[in-house]
Protein backbone atom coordinates (compact mmCIF):
# COMPACT_ATOMS: atom_id res chain seq x y z
CA UNK A 1 0.00 0.00 0.00
CA UNK A 2 1.15 3.45 -0.81
CA UNK A 3 2.16 5.18 2.39
CA UNK A 4 0.43 8.15 3.99
CA UNK A 5 -2.80 7.81 2.01
CA UNK A 6 -5.77 9.19 3.89
CA UNK A 7 -9.13 10.23 2.43
CA UNK A 8 -11.08 13.19 3.80
CA UNK A 9 -14.59 14.30 2.96
CA UNK A 10 -16.67 17.30 3.96
CA UNK A 11 -20.44 17.01 3.47
CA UNK A 12 -23.12 19.05 5.30
CA UNK A 13 -24.97 16.99 7.91
CA UNK A 14 -28.37 18.16 6.69
CA UNK A 15 -29.98 19.78 3.66
CA UNK A 16 -33.43 20.55 2.28
CA UNK A 17 -34.88 18.33 -0.46
CA UNK A 18 -33.51 19.16 -3.90
CA UNK A 19 -30.93 21.57 -2.48
CA UNK A 20 -27.58 21.73 -4.22
CA UNK A 21 -24.95 21.10 -1.56
CA UNK A 22 -21.19 21.58 -1.82
CA UNK A 23 -19.09 18.49 -1.30
CA UNK A 24 -15.35 18.74 -0.76
CA UNK A 25 -13.00 15.77 -0.92
CA UNK A 26 -9.27 15.41 -0.52
CA UNK A 27 -7.02 12.39 -0.49
CA UNK A 28 -3.42 12.66 0.60
CA UNK A 29 -1.41 10.85 -2.06
CA UNK A 30 1.98 11.37 -3.71
CA UNK A 31 0.61 11.07 -7.27
CA UNK A 32 4.00 9.96 -8.61
CA UNK A 33 3.72 10.71 -12.31
CA UNK A 34 6.03 8.05 -13.74
CA UNK A 35 7.94 10.80 -15.58
CA UNK A 36 10.56 11.43 -12.93
CA UNK A 37 13.93 9.77 -12.40
CA UNK A 38 15.72 9.09 -9.15
CA UNK A 39 19.31 10.15 -8.44
CA UNK A 40 20.64 7.02 -10.21
CA UNK A 41 18.72 7.84 -13.38
CA UNK A 42 16.12 5.09 -12.99
CA UNK A 43 12.50 5.96 -13.75
CA UNK A 44 10.36 6.15 -10.62
CA UNK A 45 7.34 4.00 -11.45
CA UNK A 46 3.95 5.67 -11.78
CA UNK A 47 1.80 5.49 -8.67
CA UNK A 48 -1.34 7.60 -8.78
CA UNK A 49 -5.00 7.54 -7.89
CA UNK A 50 -6.51 6.70 -11.29
CA UNK A 51 -10.24 6.82 -10.56
CA UNK A 52 -12.58 8.59 -8.14
CA UNK A 53 -16.23 7.62 -7.79
CA UNK A 54 -19.05 9.05 -5.68
CA UNK A 55 -22.39 7.27 -5.25
CA UNK A 56 -25.50 8.36 -3.39
CA UNK A 57 -27.79 5.55 -2.18
CA UNK A 58 -26.38 3.28 -4.87
CA UNK A 59 -26.82 5.82 -7.65
CA UNK A 60 -23.72 7.22 -9.32
CA UNK A 61 -23.03 10.94 -8.77
CA UNK A 62 -19.63 11.41 -10.41
CA UNK A 63 -17.01 9.09 -11.87
CA UNK A 64 -13.66 10.70 -12.61
CA UNK A 65 -10.64 9.34 -14.47
CA UNK A 66 -7.44 10.86 -13.08
CA UNK A 67 -4.27 11.15 -15.13
CA UNK A 68 -0.59 11.42 -14.28
CA UNK A 69 -0.48 15.22 -14.61
CA UNK A 70 -2.71 15.72 -11.56
CA UNK A 71 -0.73 16.97 -8.64
CA UNK A 72 -0.14 15.68 -5.13
CA UNK A 73 -3.15 15.33 -2.82
CA UNK A 74 -5.99 15.48 -5.37
CA UNK A 75 -8.84 17.73 -4.26
CA UNK A 76 -12.35 17.64 -5.71
CA UNK A 77 -15.12 20.06 -4.93
CA UNK A 78 -18.51 19.70 -6.59
CA UNK A 79 -22.22 20.31 -6.07
CA UNK A 80 -24.85 17.62 -5.78
CA UNK A 81 -28.61 17.82 -5.35
CA UNK A 82 -29.91 15.60 -2.62
CA UNK A 83 -33.45 14.22 -3.16
CA UNK A 84 -33.72 12.28 0.11
CA UNK A 85 -31.88 11.28 3.27
CA UNK A 86 -29.14 8.80 2.59
CA UNK A 87 -25.46 8.10 2.35
CA UNK A 88 -22.71 9.24 0.07
CA UNK A 89 -19.95 6.74 -0.61
CA UNK A 90 -16.61 7.97 -1.87
CA UNK A 91 -14.17 5.57 -3.52
CA UNK A 92 -10.62 6.20 -4.69
CA UNK A 93 -8.75 3.59 -6.82
CA UNK A 94 -4.95 3.42 -6.55
CA UNK A 95 -2.59 2.19 -9.28
CA UNK A 96 -1.29 -0.43 -6.89
CA UNK A 97 -4.76 -1.99 -6.59
CA UNK A 98 -5.69 -0.46 -3.26
CA UNK A 99 -9.16 0.99 -2.85
CA UNK A 100 -9.90 3.67 -0.26
CA UNK A 101 -13.45 4.46 0.79
CA UNK A 102 -15.28 6.88 2.99
CA UNK A 103 -19.00 7.38 3.65
CA UNK A 104 -21.03 10.34 4.85
CA UNK A 105 -24.71 10.34 5.83
CA UNK A 106 -26.94 13.32 5.17
CA UNK A 107 -30.39 14.13 6.58
CA UNK A 108 -32.95 15.73 4.30
CA UNK A 109 -35.63 17.49 6.33
Amino acid at each position, binding site marked *: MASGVKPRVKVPKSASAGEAIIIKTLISHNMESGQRKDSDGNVIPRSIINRFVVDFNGQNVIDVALEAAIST*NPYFEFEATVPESGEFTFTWYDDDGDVYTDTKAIEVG
Partner: protein
Amino acid sequence: MRVNNRSLLSALAFSVGMAGVAIADADDDQLTINDEIAIATEAAAPTHMENVKTIYSGWRYRSDETQAFQLDDFDNPAMLGVEEGIDTWSTVEGSAGESCASCHEDPEAMRGVKAVYPKWNEEAGEVRTIEMQINDCRENRMGAEAWKYTGDEMTNVVALLASVSRGVPVDVTIDGPAQSVWEQGKEIYYTRYGLLELSCANCHEDNYGNMIRADHLSQGQINGFPTYRLKNTKLNTVHDRFRGCIRDTMAETFSVASPEFVALELYVASRGNGLSVEGPSVRN
Protein backbone atom coordinates in the same frame (compact mmCIF):
# COMPACT_ATOMS: atom_id res chain seq x y z
CA MET B 1 20.44 52.50 -34.98
CA ARG B 2 17.32 54.59 -35.15
CA VAL B 3 15.09 51.55 -35.11
CA ASN B 4 16.94 50.14 -32.13
CA ASN B 5 16.55 53.34 -30.18
CA ARG B 6 12.86 53.55 -30.87
CA SER B 7 12.23 50.00 -29.74
CA LEU B 8 14.27 50.61 -26.62
CA LEU B 9 12.18 53.67 -25.84
CA SER B 10 8.91 51.86 -26.32
CA ALA B 11 10.14 49.03 -24.14
CA LEU B 12 10.94 51.55 -21.43
CA ALA B 13 7.54 53.19 -21.74
CA PHE B 14 5.92 49.77 -21.46
CA SER B 15 7.79 48.80 -18.31
CA VAL B 16 7.00 52.11 -16.62
CA GLY B 17 3.34 51.71 -17.49
CA MET B 18 3.31 48.19 -16.12
CA ALA B 19 4.95 49.23 -12.88
CA GLY B 20 2.20 51.78 -12.29
CA VAL B 21 -0.38 49.03 -12.52
CA ALA B 22 1.52 46.40 -10.63
CA ILE B 23 2.67 48.29 -7.55
CA ALA B 24 0.13 47.85 -4.81
CA ASP B 25 0.09 47.92 -1.06
CA ALA B 26 -1.39 45.27 1.15
CA ASP B 27 -5.04 44.70 0.23
CA ASP B 28 -7.96 45.33 2.57
CA ASP B 29 -9.18 41.74 2.91
CA GLN B 30 -9.88 40.38 6.38
CA LEU B 31 -9.10 36.85 7.49
CA THR B 32 -11.46 34.72 9.56
CA ILE B 33 -10.59 31.02 9.57
CA ASN B 34 -13.46 28.49 9.58
CA ASP B 35 -15.84 31.43 10.21
CA GLU B 36 -14.65 31.47 13.84
CA ILE B 37 -10.99 32.32 14.33
CA ALA B 38 -10.44 36.05 13.69
CA ILE B 39 -6.87 36.75 12.61
CA ALA B 40 -5.27 40.16 13.02
CA THR B 41 -3.42 40.59 9.71
CA GLU B 42 -2.66 44.24 10.45
CA ALA B 43 -1.41 46.00 13.56
CA ALA B 44 0.44 49.08 14.71
CA ALA B 45 4.16 48.43 14.40
CA PRO B 46 6.00 47.65 17.65
CA THR B 47 7.81 50.69 19.01
CA HIS B 48 11.25 49.27 18.25
CA MET B 49 10.56 49.49 14.51
CA GLU B 50 11.70 52.94 13.42
CA ASN B 51 10.90 52.81 9.73
CA VAL B 52 7.50 51.10 9.60
CA LYS B 53 4.18 52.37 10.94
CA THR B 54 1.85 49.46 10.25
CA ILE B 55 2.71 45.79 10.08
CA TYR B 56 0.87 43.39 7.78
CA SER B 57 0.78 39.63 7.59
CA GLY B 58 2.05 38.24 4.29
CA TRP B 59 -1.51 36.99 3.72
CA ARG B 60 -2.50 40.52 2.77
CA TYR B 61 -0.03 40.53 -0.14
CA ARG B 62 -1.30 37.36 -1.74
CA SER B 63 -3.91 36.98 -4.46
CA ASP B 64 -7.53 36.25 -3.55
CA GLU B 65 -7.13 32.66 -4.78
CA THR B 66 -4.14 32.02 -2.50
CA GLN B 67 -5.83 33.79 0.42
CA ALA B 68 -8.88 31.57 0.04
CA PHE B 69 -6.87 28.45 0.97
CA GLN B 70 -6.77 29.67 4.56
CA LEU B 71 -10.47 30.44 4.99
CA ASP B 72 -11.43 26.83 5.67
CA ASP B 73 -9.14 24.24 7.23
CA PHE B 74 -10.46 21.65 4.80
CA ASP B 75 -9.11 23.70 1.92
CA ASN B 76 -5.78 24.42 3.62
CA PRO B 77 -3.24 21.85 2.40
CA ALA B 78 -1.02 22.65 5.40
CA MET B 79 -3.59 20.99 7.65
CA LEU B 80 -2.46 17.61 6.30
CA GLY B 81 0.79 18.22 8.12
CA VAL B 82 -1.12 19.26 11.24
CA GLU B 83 -3.06 15.98 11.13
CA GLU B 84 0.20 14.06 11.02
CA GLY B 85 1.43 16.23 13.87
CA ILE B 86 -1.59 15.17 15.94
CA ASP B 87 -0.68 11.50 15.40
CA THR B 88 2.94 12.20 16.35
CA TRP B 89 1.84 14.14 19.44
CA SER B 90 0.47 11.01 21.09
CA THR B 91 3.08 8.56 19.78
CA VAL B 92 5.18 7.11 22.59
CA GLU B 93 8.90 7.16 21.79
CA GLY B 94 12.16 6.84 23.68
CA SER B 95 13.41 5.17 26.82
CA ALA B 96 11.05 7.00 29.21
CA GLY B 97 7.99 5.53 27.48
CA GLU B 98 6.35 8.88 27.00
CA SER B 99 4.80 10.94 24.25
CA CYS B 100 4.27 14.70 24.00
CA ALA B 101 0.73 14.07 25.26
CA SER B 102 2.00 12.33 28.43
CA CYS B 103 2.97 15.69 29.89
CA HIS B 104 1.24 18.27 27.74
CA GLU B 105 -2.13 16.48 27.33
CA ASP B 106 -4.19 17.78 24.40
CA PRO B 107 -2.47 19.95 21.80
CA GLU B 108 -5.14 22.58 22.57
CA ALA B 109 -3.58 22.94 26.04
CA MET B 110 -0.58 24.48 24.24
CA ARG B 111 -2.58 27.44 22.98
CA GLY B 112 -0.45 30.58 23.10
CA VAL B 113 2.90 28.79 23.34
CA LYS B 114 3.87 29.36 19.71
CA ALA B 115 3.19 33.09 20.10
CA VAL B 116 6.07 33.68 22.54
CA TYR B 117 8.85 31.73 20.77
CA PRO B 118 11.79 32.22 20.29
CA LYS B 119 12.17 32.65 24.02
CA TRP B 120 14.93 32.90 26.63
CA ASN B 121 15.44 29.67 28.54
CA GLU B 122 16.82 30.46 31.97
CA GLU B 123 18.06 26.97 32.78
CA ALA B 124 19.98 26.60 29.54
CA GLY B 125 21.04 30.24 29.43
CA GLU B 126 20.12 30.64 25.76
CA VAL B 127 17.39 31.83 23.45
CA ARG B 128 15.50 28.84 22.14
CA THR B 129 13.26 28.38 19.15
CA ILE B 130 10.25 26.13 19.59
CA GLU B 131 12.10 23.48 17.58
CA MET B 132 15.03 23.56 20.03
CA GLN B 133 12.60 23.23 22.94
CA ILE B 134 10.89 20.25 21.31
CA ASN B 135 14.21 18.50 20.76
CA ASP B 136 15.21 19.23 24.35
CA CYS B 137 11.99 17.53 25.48
CA ARG B 138 12.68 14.59 23.20
CA GLU B 139 16.26 14.06 24.29
CA ASN B 140 16.08 14.88 27.99
CA ARG B 141 12.53 13.96 28.99
CA MET B 142 11.46 11.28 26.53
CA GLY B 143 14.89 9.72 26.04
CA ALA B 144 14.25 9.82 22.31
CA GLU B 145 16.43 10.87 19.41
CA ALA B 146 16.35 14.51 18.42
CA TRP B 147 14.46 15.22 15.22
CA LYS B 148 16.09 16.82 12.22
CA TYR B 149 15.52 20.55 12.70
CA THR B 150 13.60 21.03 9.47
CA GLY B 151 12.42 17.42 9.08
CA ASP B 152 8.81 16.44 8.50
CA GLU B 153 8.07 15.23 12.06
CA MET B 154 9.41 18.44 13.55
CA THR B 155 7.69 20.73 11.08
CA ASN B 156 4.36 18.92 11.42
CA VAL B 157 4.42 19.26 15.21
CA VAL B 158 5.42 22.94 14.97
CA ALA B 159 2.51 23.39 12.53
CA LEU B 160 0.22 21.72 15.07
CA LEU B 161 1.43 24.05 17.82
CA ALA B 162 0.93 27.04 15.52
CA SER B 163 -2.57 25.91 14.56
CA VAL B 164 -3.79 25.75 18.17
CA SER B 165 -2.43 29.26 18.76
CA ARG B 166 -4.12 30.87 15.78
CA GLY B 167 -5.62 34.20 16.73
CA VAL B 168 -3.26 34.71 19.67
CA PRO B 169 -1.09 37.83 19.16
CA VAL B 170 2.62 37.24 18.58
CA ASP B 171 4.41 38.47 21.70
CA VAL B 172 8.10 37.63 21.86
CA THR B 173 10.18 39.22 24.58
CA ILE B 174 13.11 41.28 23.33
CA ASP B 175 14.50 42.81 26.50
CA GLY B 176 16.09 41.26 29.57
CA PRO B 177 18.46 38.37 28.93
CA ALA B 178 17.25 37.97 25.33
CA GLN B 179 18.28 41.50 24.38
CA SER B 180 21.80 40.79 23.15
CA VAL B 181 20.54 37.98 20.92
CA TRP B 182 17.78 40.25 19.63
CA GLU B 183 20.36 42.91 18.78
CA GLN B 184 22.47 40.36 16.96
CA GLY B 185 19.37 39.45 14.94
CA LYS B 186 18.73 43.09 14.14
CA GLU B 187 22.34 43.46 12.99
CA ILE B 188 21.88 40.51 10.62
CA TYR B 189 18.56 41.92 9.36
CA TYR B 190 20.24 45.15 8.26
CA THR B 191 23.47 43.60 6.92
CA ARG B 192 23.84 43.37 3.15
CA TYR B 193 24.83 39.85 2.08
CA GLY B 194 25.91 38.19 -1.10
CA LEU B 195 26.92 39.29 -4.56
CA LEU B 196 23.69 41.25 -4.84
CA GLU B 197 24.48 43.04 -1.59
CA LEU B 198 20.98 42.82 -0.23
CA SER B 199 19.86 42.92 3.37
CA CYS B 200 16.50 41.63 4.60
CA ALA B 201 15.49 45.28 5.00
CA ASN B 202 16.20 46.21 1.38
CA CYS B 203 13.28 44.09 0.23
CA HIS B 204 11.04 43.69 3.27
CA GLU B 205 11.30 47.15 4.79
CA ASP B 206 12.24 49.49 1.92
CA ASN B 207 10.17 47.81 -0.77
CA TYR B 208 7.23 45.86 0.64
CA GLY B 209 4.23 46.32 -1.62
CA ASN B 210 6.47 46.62 -4.70
CA MET B 211 6.98 43.85 -7.20
CA ILE B 212 10.15 41.76 -7.22
CA ARG B 213 9.82 40.53 -10.78
CA ALA B 214 6.47 38.68 -10.75
CA ASP B 215 6.10 38.50 -6.98
CA HIS B 216 4.48 40.94 -4.60
CA LEU B 217 6.94 41.74 -1.81
CA SER B 218 5.58 41.36 1.70
CA GLN B 219 7.06 42.60 4.93
CA GLY B 220 8.63 39.21 5.48
CA GLN B 221 6.59 38.51 8.60
CA ILE B 222 6.88 35.02 10.08
CA ASN B 223 3.61 34.89 12.03
CA GLY B 224 2.26 32.45 9.40
CA PHE B 225 5.02 29.84 9.72
CA PRO B 226 5.29 26.97 9.12
CA THR B 227 4.07 27.91 5.66
CA TYR B 228 2.72 25.66 2.95
CA ARG B 229 4.26 26.97 -0.25
CA LEU B 230 2.53 26.32 -3.54
CA LYS B 231 5.93 26.29 -5.25
CA ASN B 232 7.11 23.18 -3.43
CA THR B 233 3.79 21.80 -2.09
CA LYS B 234 5.03 21.23 1.42
CA LEU B 235 5.35 22.89 4.79
CA ASN B 236 8.36 25.20 4.98
CA THR B 237 10.14 26.23 8.14
CA VAL B 238 11.33 29.69 9.07
CA HIS B 239 15.00 28.75 8.85
CA ASP B 240 14.58 27.16 5.44
CA ARG B 241 12.93 30.37 4.28
CA PHE B 242 15.76 32.49 5.69
CA ARG B 243 18.24 30.25 3.94
CA GLY B 244 16.36 30.56 0.64
CA CYS B 245 16.28 34.34 0.89
CA ILE B 246 19.97 34.68 1.69
CA ARG B 247 20.87 32.16 -1.01
CA ASP B 248 18.98 34.31 -3.52
CA THR B 249 21.29 37.20 -2.71
CA MET B 250 24.05 34.84 -3.92
CA ALA B 251 25.59 34.56 -0.48
CA GLU B 252 26.91 31.68 1.55
CA THR B 253 24.03 31.26 3.98
CA PHE B 254 24.05 30.53 7.68
CA SER B 255 22.96 27.00 8.40
CA VAL B 256 19.61 25.90 9.71
CA ALA B 257 19.52 26.01 13.55
CA SER B 258 22.65 28.16 13.68
CA PRO B 259 22.88 30.80 16.42
CA GLU B 260 22.70 33.46 13.68
CA PHE B 261 19.35 32.18 12.42
CA VAL B 262 17.99 31.79 15.96
CA ALA B 263 18.87 35.45 16.55
CA LEU B 264 17.36 36.49 13.23
CA GLU B 265 14.20 34.50 13.99
CA LEU B 266 13.82 36.29 17.32
CA TYR B 267 14.29 39.67 15.67
CA VAL B 268 11.96 39.00 12.73
CA ALA B 269 9.33 37.51 15.07
CA SER B 270 9.53 40.68 17.17
CA ARG B 271 8.74 42.73 14.07
CA GLY B 272 5.41 40.86 14.05
CA ASN B 273 4.52 41.48 17.69
CA GLY B 274 0.80 42.28 17.57
CA LEU B 275 -0.12 40.23 14.51
CA SER B 276 -2.00 36.99 15.18
CA VAL B 277 -0.28 33.65 14.99
CA GLU B 278 -1.58 32.48 11.61
CA GLY B 279 0.36 29.30 10.87
CA PRO B 280 0.18 27.06 9.13
CA SER B 281 -0.43 29.52 6.33
CA VAL B 282 -0.46 29.18 2.55
CA ARG B 283 1.81 31.30 0.38
CA ASN B 284 3.22 31.29 -3.14
